């Protein structure tokens, strides 16, 4: 067995049985189980409680009608709307918290369609509570008694839309929910999981090296293997450890979601194998990049805590794309998204976020892969040199001068 594999299997076996690893790995499924149990036992009450937290109390809205179409308020709307003779009275009711908002319908409403909605909180309770309610009220005022009730009802709610997603052969996929899950939710979830795997694996790598340095076992190991062999063995073993953790999380989420997750994951592969393979590729490249950086940080710090502080700078860079998640979701091809895709430290994260959203230009994918394929050997080259210097400096961190001199050495 080659030394790289001996180190890889040693790292895997030793770390997979650590209490800390087992605890974190089982925490995720355990939380899911707890959620299910709570749901089963207190489902009704819990839902009510949640609803009461997130749904604002349905409050009446005022109507100041200068058009004459809407007063008196029809009986079916009386529970939600209350008429006021003028703006001043309505404003007083709003300020004394008797109503949640009020709408002024001007005399030229029929011609302009303009209304004014007054509120105190910045949100109108009329449009927030039920977006169709105001429309139905306005349509009813204009058309009630003038058209067939069926037309009135349809004009109040003109569409009940069904989304059909076609696969590459033009066949509709069964079920709207599954299509959304397979097309966006599952790949997105998968990307996040891979992202977590990259950082949990690199974290283990950092700790493993920092621990070996702190316990002074590193030099004994280095008398048997070269620094690149040590690095390679650890990268493989601890990468496998991170994947094990994520696999357990994924499997548990499939089981807990009653198999829906498994079907969705299968659908990801069938519907978009390209994205799946690209995500796996970005995972591999991201892990190689951050794994090497973390290993170098592990070798440079005088103790695990200091190493983690050093590594934090790079983890922060990798998290930058999340700050722009809002832009990325609304426009996956925004200039900032494209720029982050070709910066080595942000490329894996950005691409993992962009891919599930679809429509990423091929040039962006190629450019980001080229950037990563060029920067990874550079990082490994520099990392191996700094690694060699940092590993043997006990109780003292390598200075910038020493790092530069290590990079210059043959």
């Amino acid at each position: 067995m080659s030394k790289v594999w001996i180190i890889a299997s040693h790292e895997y076996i030793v770390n997979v049985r650590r209490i800390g690893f087992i605890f974190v790995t089982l925490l995720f499924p355990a939380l899911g189980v707890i959620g299910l149990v709570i749901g089963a036992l207190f489902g009704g009450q819990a839902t009510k409680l949640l609803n009461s937290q997130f749904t604002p109390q349905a409050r009446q809205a005022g109507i100041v009608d200068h058009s004459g179409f809407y007063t008196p308020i029809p009986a079916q709307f009386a529970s939600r709307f209350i008429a006021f003779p003028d703006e001043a009275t309505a404003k007083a009711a709003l300020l004394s918290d008797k109503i949640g908002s009020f709408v002024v319908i001007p005399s030229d409403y029929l011609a302009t369609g303009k209304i004014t909605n007054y509120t105190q909180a910045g949100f109108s309770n009329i449009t927030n509570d039920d977006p169709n309610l105001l429309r139905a009220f306005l349509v009813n005022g204009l058309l009630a008694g003038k058209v067939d009730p069926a037309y009135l009802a349809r004009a109040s709610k003109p569409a009940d839309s069904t989304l059909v997603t076609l696969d590459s052969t033009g066949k509709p996929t069964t079920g709207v929910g599954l299509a959304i899950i397979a097309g966006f939710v599952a790949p997105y979830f998968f990307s996040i999981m891979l992202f977590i795997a990259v950082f949990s694996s690199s974290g283990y790598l950092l700790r493993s090296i920092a621990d070996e340095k702190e316990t002074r076992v590193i030099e004994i190991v280095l008398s048997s293997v070269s620094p690149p062999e040590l690095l390679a063995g650890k990268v493989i073993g601890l990468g496998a450890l991170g994947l094990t953790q994520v696999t357990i999380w994924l499997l548990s989420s499939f089981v807990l979601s009653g198999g829906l997750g498994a079907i969705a994951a299968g659908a990801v592969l069938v519907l978009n194998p390209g994205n799946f393979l690209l995500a796996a590729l970005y995972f591999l490249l991201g892990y190689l990049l951050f794994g090497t950086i973390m290993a170098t940080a592990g070798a440079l710090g005088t103790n695990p805590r200091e190493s983690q502080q050093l590594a934090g700078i790079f983890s922060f860079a990798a998290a930058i794309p999340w700050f722009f998640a809002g832009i990325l979701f609304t426009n996956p091809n925004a200039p900032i998204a494209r720029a982050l895709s070709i910066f080595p430290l942000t490329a894996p994260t950005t691409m993992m976020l962009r891919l599930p959203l679809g429509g990423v230009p091929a040039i962006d994918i190629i450019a980001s892969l080229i950037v990563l394929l060029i920067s990874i050997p550079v990082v490994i080259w520099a990392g191996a040199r700094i690694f060699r210097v940092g590993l043997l400096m006990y109780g003292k961190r390598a200075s910038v001068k020493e790092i530069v001199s290590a990079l210059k050495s043959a």
Partner: protein
Amino acid sequence: MDDLVVQVDQLQKSFNSLVAVDHLTFQVNRGEIFGLLGPNGAGKTTTIRILMDIIKPDAGAARVLGNPPGVARERIGYLPEERGLYRGLRVDETLVYLGELKGMSRATARKRATELLARVELSEWTRNKVQELSRGMQQKVQIIASIIHDPDLVILDEPFQGLDPVNVEVVKDLIRDLRAQGKTIALSAHEMSQVEVLCERILLIDHGKAVLYGALSDIKKQFSPNAIEITPPFSFDGWREVERTETHDHKQLIYLTKGTAPREFLKTALERGLAIDQFEMASMPLEQIFVQVVTEGRTTNDG
């Protein structure tokens, strides 16, 4: 087989402005116990790390077991100065893993670990975690880790550091055993008194430079004072053969006047009826030789 196990020629290594190894040249012969001696910071560990291919030299050449450093890793046993073990791992797991890294099969490494643990009376601790062992026990395990793969050359960097006197003797016995098995041992130490009884040849270095190099007996002879040591002590007032005396631990060190041979002194002492129990030629401790050489700025290099 080549009789030169280690060959070092004009080796140089600097760390920024600090010259750690300065044109060092020496050889280690097959089957000997070789001492790389010098005070802390003399360049011993740097030299050893170059031989182990852990750091690269700036200039000069080194060959270990006939190869450049790093090639014959599996035939070398190494106990670094900065040493430790995986604290959370069991003793046997640690030794098997380190043995596997030296190219042993898992089964062979396990068998050999069991034998060596028994040799240093640690059999009952085999399945304990390293952190449960005392410091002395951990050091014994570290030494076992360095020889588990039955290496041809054993390099021990400060092997006695941190050991209590009892364990110093255990380790010395282990080194003598290895020597008896035909292994070559190169060891470093800053406390020269601890190793001068073990080493056949030495290299004394200071500030990266060779200060003394050669067979220990020759060096001792070269720096031997014109003195003898006797037991028990007597008064030598008025003796023209005696320049001065010093008494330590019931032993009397007698410095003879110039031109007086030890044999001549002994003859006179017996004629005068002194009941001498023990008589031996005095030799200068290695540490004293080192101080003398460094102070006088003399360098002797016969290599």
